[in-house]
């Protein structure tokens, strides 16, 4: 947790102070792709190598999958509704203001 925060702060400082020369700026994007691949493979290996977890999967796995799926559906739906609601309010606000102005 604290390690992650430290990495983030160091990164933001490097970016903010523009320590990296312009020529090498694209390298951060390569770095992120390579480390993303390594991270996901290592995460996967931990799940795949955990035989206990796999044994429990058949029993609790279905319930867990349903719950995980539903939490995602619920949060995406609410954020989507909230976003649309704000957009509508903004639209009507803009419309009212433009009629007042004219």
């Amino acid at each position, binding site marked *: 947790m604290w390690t992650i925060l430290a990495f983030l702060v160091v*990164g933001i400082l490097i970016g903010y102070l523009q320590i990296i020369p312009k020529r090498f700026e694209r390298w951060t994007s390569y770095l992120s792709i390579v480390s*993303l691949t390594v991270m996901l493979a290592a995460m996967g290996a931990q799940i795949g*190598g955990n035989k206990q977890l796999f044994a429990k999967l058949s029993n609790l796995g279905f319930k*867990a999958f349903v719950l995980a799926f539903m939490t995602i559906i619920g949060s995406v739906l*609410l954020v989507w509704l909230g976003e649309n609601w704000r957009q509508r309010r903004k639209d009507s606000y803009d419309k009212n203001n433009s009629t007042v102005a004219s």
Partner: protein
Amino acid sequence: MTKIILLSLVSGVALGYLWLDPSLLGYCDKISTYALGLLIMSVGIELGRDKETWSRLYSKGLQVLLLPLLVAIGSILGALIGGFWLDLPANEASAVGAGFGWYSLSGVLLTKLYNVELGTLAFLTNIFRELLAILCMPLLAKHLSFLTAVAPGGATTMDTTLPIIAKTTDSETAVLAFINGATLSALVPLLVPLLIGIKL
């Protein structure tokens, strides 16, 4: 992006399942932590460069907390509906949902406060949530909206899923995602004990 994600994840699982010596699992944990560190640093570099975004978000003030609020309510409601269908009591389903993808903490909390079985269910549910989030974020960013792409990640949008959000959306969304993850992470140790204690 989705192809890279899917390919590395699946090959990792296959590698771990078929070949990996259990004694090497500790190294995988180290490798993934350091790779995550590098990833977060490169996200930080890109965010630090983008100075406009910060001032724009600062001017929004407390509004940025609307996103984690909606994600929290949506996750708990979703878990309640799923739990109703699975015949889980409301306190169990809502507490599992309030893990917001932070599987280690919600798993440990519920094992200690309630029982091992619910702890394991919370652990698995929130691992699945993180994996499903990794897979559906690029799709949501492309087809629905940048903000809805943040929603599936829950508390993980401040670390493990932040790089994917940064890659598939813009830097304003990435900063919002970090705030979203941090807020939800702070809510997990409060909401899980609270919800499991509610008896209807």
